[in-house]
């Protein structure tokens, strides 16, 4: 029965992805020179999409490869059009700038939009300016595979249980990433391969027909892409428009708009940083410690049975495989047990002890991988004490894990998904848009520095300081100041990005007496880039105050842009 359900949902998700890519393909605009997608290329695109969700890149899969900026660049490289691919990726990424996946929820799929969207855009001969209109609806389809994955991977957790019963340490580790990754390869790579291969052919053949018969619709999708970027910016503003902070958004916008969009990234980043520092300087009170991560507390006598190498071995397994077998039933439970395997091997020698330790850590666990690593450090220290004979019960270990994993996820998601990734992306995307190939690389380096550097530091502190690490690291309100500074910088950068990425102009003309007014030049006379700014604010208002769903806004933008481009007696709105 279960198997039948699985087969049906797999078939449905393949069919829907195919239909989705055909549907969007048929509405594709702006013919450029198409780059045919061979079956081999399509296969590689599928493999790359799988890789972006796989555990084999030291946590840089989900944080780096999964982002459209990087996806577009990689697909561009594969298809021999690197700069075009990178620009397409950057444009698609605007929509996912404020994208946060918390606690196993997946609101849209940036990876699918990035890999498949770029392949279809290049394969069908779409310009970067129109690619977003095709990629945006694709992103919605990813949720199907996600739901399938989250419910099916529970099976492998039970296989791991069976190995824990037999005290088979390596078996538990393998159950975390071997069966799950074979399965995920099938459900991620194959549907995307098929969609890239057949979808791009459909785009290419449909484009000729559309070009001849529906020339105006192409202009419409061009408009839609420029306007969809406003949705991406507005989604991010929901997190950033707090108190008086929107002022910085307008400053960023005006600096960029008045410079005619030509200002380079470096001066822009320096202005933004200076403003953020000034804000924090003038708003923080008192003489709280200025260091971001206050250290302190007694390191105590550590490394009695374990060595630094053992702790590092545990960290590396967590870094790579935390989400390998992610599922609704245990979430990262199998990943946690896997990360404990080097420690368990070293500390426990009898079959009973090993089996008990494995089972102890195969239970439900879910946190944010980088900041949450402190929990692992604390757990390792407790396991060591226990092996030395201290009276530490299963409940004590389990309760520290379950009580800390939630708050650490809250802090971790705020810092990693809410600050580090969006700011690094904004920097990388601006560089990419100016044709600078370092864009995606700078993004990757910034994220890696955080994920590896901060991740390992916090993991170690957890081991050395025990549970006091949590309060020691975060005390003094320094964290809040960093967050405030990041929010100021975020507002400023998004204001500037509004100028670079959102485009909207009107062709409305009206005649009074004998003079014809061109509405667009009237608006330009007031302020450059006024329509993009108004559009971003309107969408923010709809999202925040009217609670309209992003999907509805996305569809409305595409429909209005296309219909508004339909010429009536030679006149159209856009």
């Amino acid at each position: 029965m279960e198997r039948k359900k699985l087969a049906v949902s797999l078939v449905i998700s393949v069919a829907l992805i195919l239909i989705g890519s055909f549907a969007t393909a048929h509405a594709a605009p702006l013919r450029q020179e198409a780059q045919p997608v061979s079956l081999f290329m399509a296969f590689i695109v599928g493999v790359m999409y799988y890789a972006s969700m796989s555990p084999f890149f030291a946590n840089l899969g989900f944080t780096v490869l999964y982002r459209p900026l990087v996806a577009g660049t990689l697909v561009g490289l594969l298809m021999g059009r690197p700069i075009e691919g990178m620009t397409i990726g950057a444009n698609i990424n605007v929509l996912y700038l404020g994208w946060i996946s918390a606690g196993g929820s997946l609101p849209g799929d940036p990876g699918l939009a990035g890999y498949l969207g770029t392949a279809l855009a290049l394969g069908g001969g779409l310009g970067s300016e129109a690619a977003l209109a095709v990629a945006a609806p694709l992103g919605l389809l990813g949720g199907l595979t996600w739901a399938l994955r989250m419910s099916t991977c529970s099976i492998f957790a039970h296989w791991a249980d069976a190995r824990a019963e037999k005290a088979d340490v390596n078996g538990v580790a393998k159950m975390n990433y071997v069966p799950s990754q074979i399965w995920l390869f099938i459900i991620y790579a194959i549907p995307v391969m098929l969609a890239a291969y057949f979808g791009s052919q459909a785009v290419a053949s449909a484009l000729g027909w559309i070009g001849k018969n529906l020339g105006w619709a192409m202009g419409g999708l061009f408009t839609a892409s420029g306007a969809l970027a406003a949705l991406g910016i507005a989604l991010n503003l929901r997190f950033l428009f707090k108190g008086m902070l929107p002022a910085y958004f307008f400053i960023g916008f005006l600096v960029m708009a008045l410079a005619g969009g030509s200002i380079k990234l470096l001066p822009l980043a320096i202005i933004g940083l200076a403003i953020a520092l000034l804000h924090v300087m003038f708003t923080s009170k008192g003489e709280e410690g200025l260091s971001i991560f206050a250290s302190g507390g007694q390191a105590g006598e550590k490394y009695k049975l374990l060595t630094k190498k053992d702790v590092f071995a545990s960290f590396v397994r967590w870094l790579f495989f935390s989400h390998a077998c992610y599922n609704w039933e245990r979430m990262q439970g199998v990943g946690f047990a896997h990360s404990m395997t080097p420690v368990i091997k070293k500390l426990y020698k009898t079959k009973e002890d090993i089996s008990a330790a494995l089972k102890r850590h195969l239970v439900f666990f879910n946190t944010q991988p980088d900041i949450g690593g402190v929990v692992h450090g604390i757990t390792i220290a407790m396991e060591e004490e226990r092996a030395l004979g201290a009276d530490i019960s299963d409940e004590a270990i389990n309760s520290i894990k379950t009580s800390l994993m939630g708050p650490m996820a809250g802090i971790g998601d705020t810092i990693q998904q809410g600050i580090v990734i969006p700011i690094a992306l904004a920097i990388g995307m601006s560089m990419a848009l100016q044709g600078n190939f370092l864009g995606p690389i700078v993004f990757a380096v910034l994220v890696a520095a955080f994920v590896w550097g901060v991740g390992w530091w916090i993991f170690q502190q957890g081991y050395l300081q025990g549970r006091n690490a949590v309060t020691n690291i975060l005390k003094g309100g320094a964290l809040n100041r960093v967050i405030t500074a990041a929010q100021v910088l975020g507002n400023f950068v998004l204001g500037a990005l509004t100028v670079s990425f959102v485009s909207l102009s009107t062709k409305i003309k009206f005649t009074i007496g004998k003079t014809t007014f061109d509405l667009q030049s009237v608006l330009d006379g007031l302020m450059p880039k006024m329509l993009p700014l108004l559009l971003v604010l309107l969408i923010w208002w709809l999202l925040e105050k009217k609670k309209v769903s992003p999907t509805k806004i996305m569809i409305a933008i595409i429909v209005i842009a296309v219909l508004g481009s339909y010429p009536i007696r030679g006149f159209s709105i856009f």
Partner: protein
Amino acid sequence: MIRIAELGLVRIDDRLIHGQVVAVWLNHIRVDRIVIVDDGVAKDSFMQDVLRLAAPPGVTVDARTVQEGIATLGDDMPNRERVMVLMKSPKTARQLFDGGIRFSNLNVGGIGAGPGRKSLFKNISMSEEEKGILKSLVKDGVTVTLQTVPGEKTADFASLVK
């Protein structure tokens, strides 16, 4: 008759304050104060520090035992509509309700798998006893909704266990 303001959100979530709550819920509804009702946390000052650190600036966090919670969350509580109530299990929700705390909506956001619990919906697992408690709340007129975060798929508890 004076209308009593509804509590902003009443949620069962065994991870209390975490990513979904901080990064999604708090950006979706306006909340000034989080009241955690849990006998264990109310006596654990370390956990209270940690939970306060996890909440964003401008949101105060208080931990209460069930008895204290009943006293705090009553009809005369100021700014009730901007209060988020978090607890770990259906049992606490029932105790609050029996103590006279009125809420017409109950959000179940996450209950981890464990002994005796069976998977019900996404990351929500429940034992038969816990299901029974929620059913009794439904009978008392509470709408029980299973939902991790706004914008994600929801499930109505009453129709799910029918």
